[in-house]
């Protein structure tokens, strides 16, 4: 990383607009609303969780809250969430 880009990032920290970032920790804030603490998910591996999230997203009916929610995330975002939750 160049010094110039470091400086730009640092200036952005105080003045600039937020960068759109696929960040598993930040995206997982949404999950924590229902799945934190005592109700934590049995996450298993990142691959297994990613597959489970894709399965929710691809369901044809939208009766389940998880299907309605999973449709709001890109595959890249679901992958980041799975990887973050699997390592925490």
């Amino acid at each position, binding site marked *: 990383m160049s010094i110039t880009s470091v400086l730009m990032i*640092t200036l952005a920290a105080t003045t600039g607009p937020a*960068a*759109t970032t696929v*960040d598993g920790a930040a995206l997982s*804030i949404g999950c924590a*609303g229902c799945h934190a603490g005592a109700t934590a998910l049995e996450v298993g591996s990142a691959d297994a969780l990613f597959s489970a999230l894709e399965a929710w997203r691809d369901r044809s009916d939208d009766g389940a809250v998880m299907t*309605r929610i999973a449709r*709001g995330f890109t595959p890249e975002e679901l992958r980041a969430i799975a990887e973050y939750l699997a390592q925490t």
Partner: protein
Amino acid sequence: MTRRTTRRQVLAALAAIGVAGCATRRAVKPRVVIVGGGFGGASCARALRDADPSIDVTLVEPNTQYLACPLSNLVISGWRRLEQQAFSYAALEARGVRVLATRASDVDPVAKTVTTASGDVLAYDRLVMSPGVELDFDGLPGYDAAAATRMPHAWSAGAQTLLLRRQLEAMPNGGTFAIVAPDNPYRCPPGPYERASVVAHYLSQSKPRSKVLILDAKDRFSKQALFLAEWRQRYGDLVTWQGRSDGARVVHVDASAGRIETEFDSVRADVSNVIPPQRAARIAARAGVTDASGWCPVDAATFASTQQRDIHVLGDAAIANAMPKSAFSAQAQGRLVANQIVRFFNALPPISSKLINTCYSYLAPDSAISIADVYRPEGERWRTVAGAGGVSALDATAEDRRGEADAALRWFNTATAGAFG
């Protein structure tokens, strides 16, 4: 690339090029003051301490116990006790949050201090305001604090909830329970309609000749098609909803005469539950973070006030556009703001990340419906992500509805443990 940049790399690079000002920010213990200990403020406090115990976190909240609004409609219908809505701040204190049981009376955004009613002056590096709503007693002629003792709003949990419960219990069979619902925006968009549902259930069991009459200042409301269909199916003509186009907007109340005046009519109900217009709590105006609407404009991604530097506003007081004023939203926003503040103290740029809201509404003790959406920040607006979200199915089975009632209770237990546990 951004994600892999460590604070050390940033500081080293800055030192190398002689930019020392920013790098000294971390030399002293960073101080965060949080005004308001509801779902938003409490969750933010905890998330900050969880993320970085070196951050000095002070929570200013006048109530020594928090009475949660979600599920408080079930206290009115007699299915829960008010004590089940109560949470203390002891666990947050054990996590190292300094909890001051006093009211924030003023904010000086230039000196970066919060003054409390007990005379403390608290200096902050970042201020988080999650003060919630106050009832706008200028917003509905005739309705003020005195009127609320006869026509309870029950829009903050506590004595008002119990008063409305007592009035419902005292109501004669064949009586009318009126709910005056405000125009948008207000705290808990589906709340008046959940209340109508659970009161209708109580009446259908105990006083079946009675009526629930909703006088609404708007024509559309949250989960409308579901509520209307479920009321019809479960409670027949016990529940009547009238909207703005029906002339049902309430323009004046006379609490001592027990009269509610709409644009076209005058109604005398046995119980009058008046939910008045709302605005951000007064301390937000003192801090200079409210606009002419009475609410607080923010940069969406960070919830940083667009009017005052170094102040974040979240929860019901903030203008979060598509995101509703709900406990779920406030908790998610509190956690996101904690994440952004930790990034800020580490000289990392803010990030733009999606959030979720899910709200359940009870129809009966064993039956609920839900609405869920995903949101993305765009400049000063939170927008709904297209193709996602929505409400429970109209034709769901009784088992589905029961499953959502169970999920509602699980959510409440998770959310309160996350904020106050």
